[in-house]
């Protein structure tokens, strides 16, 4: 588990937390930087199984998850998250280079709320995330 930026305090307000799940360290770094710049606290996992475990442990405010990963892929991880009452309500935004296909359809059937198409840019991410989370202020 990696904390990109931790700023939680005992007394201060809690930052909104986004869990990013991708087998590409490059994408984790890019998302980490962009989300951190937007003011979110970022958690990172490098595969679906790790992402499911981290979601259960940390209950983030949003999960951004790659579709194609070795081992447990993003669709399988999404299904696991929605099966578990503890994580079922966490909004999940899928992320993929693929703009169409059955994985996209399946992700929405399983309860994904958004689909972020790679390449991930600041504008694209900000536009998508603003549909799900308020600006990175306090809760």
């Amino acid at each position, binding site marked *: 588990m990696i904390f990109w930026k931790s700023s939680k305090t005992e007394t201060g307000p809690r930052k909104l937390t986004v869990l990013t799940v991708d087998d*590409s360290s*490059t994408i984790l770094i890019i998302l980490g930087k962009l989300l951190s710049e937007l003011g979110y606290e970022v958690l990172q996992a490098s595969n679906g199984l790790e992402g499911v475990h981290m979601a259960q442990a940390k209950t983030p405010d949003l999960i951004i998850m790659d579709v194609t990963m070795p081992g447990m892929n993003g669709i399988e991880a999404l299904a696991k998250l929605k099966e578990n009452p503890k994580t079922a309500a966490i909004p999940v935004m899928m992320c993929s280079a693929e703009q169409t296909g*059955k994985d996209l359809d399946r992700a929405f059937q399983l309860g994904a709320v958004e689909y972020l*198409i790679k390449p991930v840019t600041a504008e694209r991410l900000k536009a998508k995330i603003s549909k799900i989370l308020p600006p990175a202020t306090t809760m």
Partner: protein
Amino acid sequence: MSLRVERTVLAEVVASVFKGMVGIEARPGGDSPEFLPIAAMIGISGGEDRMAVILRLSEALALKVAGAMLGEEAMSWGPAAEDAVAELANVIAGNLKPHLRAGMALSLPTVVHGSDFAIHSPRLAISQSETFTCPDEPLIVILARES
């Protein structure tokens, strides 16, 4: 089915991905070297069809790609540069996919780096090869399909 993509479409996809991910221009054309030391391959399959998108590029371009994507200069080839090149290939293949037959899915990327190698597959045949200059380094995008 053909795995040919209109040259203008291929050029638009490559240019758009380079601009969005790397922040550099990718122009069609330029010299095509006999050998480039890095190859990144993504399989695309669906039904009975098997295809591949292969990028060939220089180490200098790979380091430029990695540096731009990671936000810090990449000094030498290593896992970080390899991952960045893999992601570049993944995104180019993903953005080409809508221009291919529907119902196809991407594989995980494979990246090869070396001073003397060739890629052979008993089943894959090159159907298209386009050279780009980014902005002064060569990039070759190869589309291959199972014959």
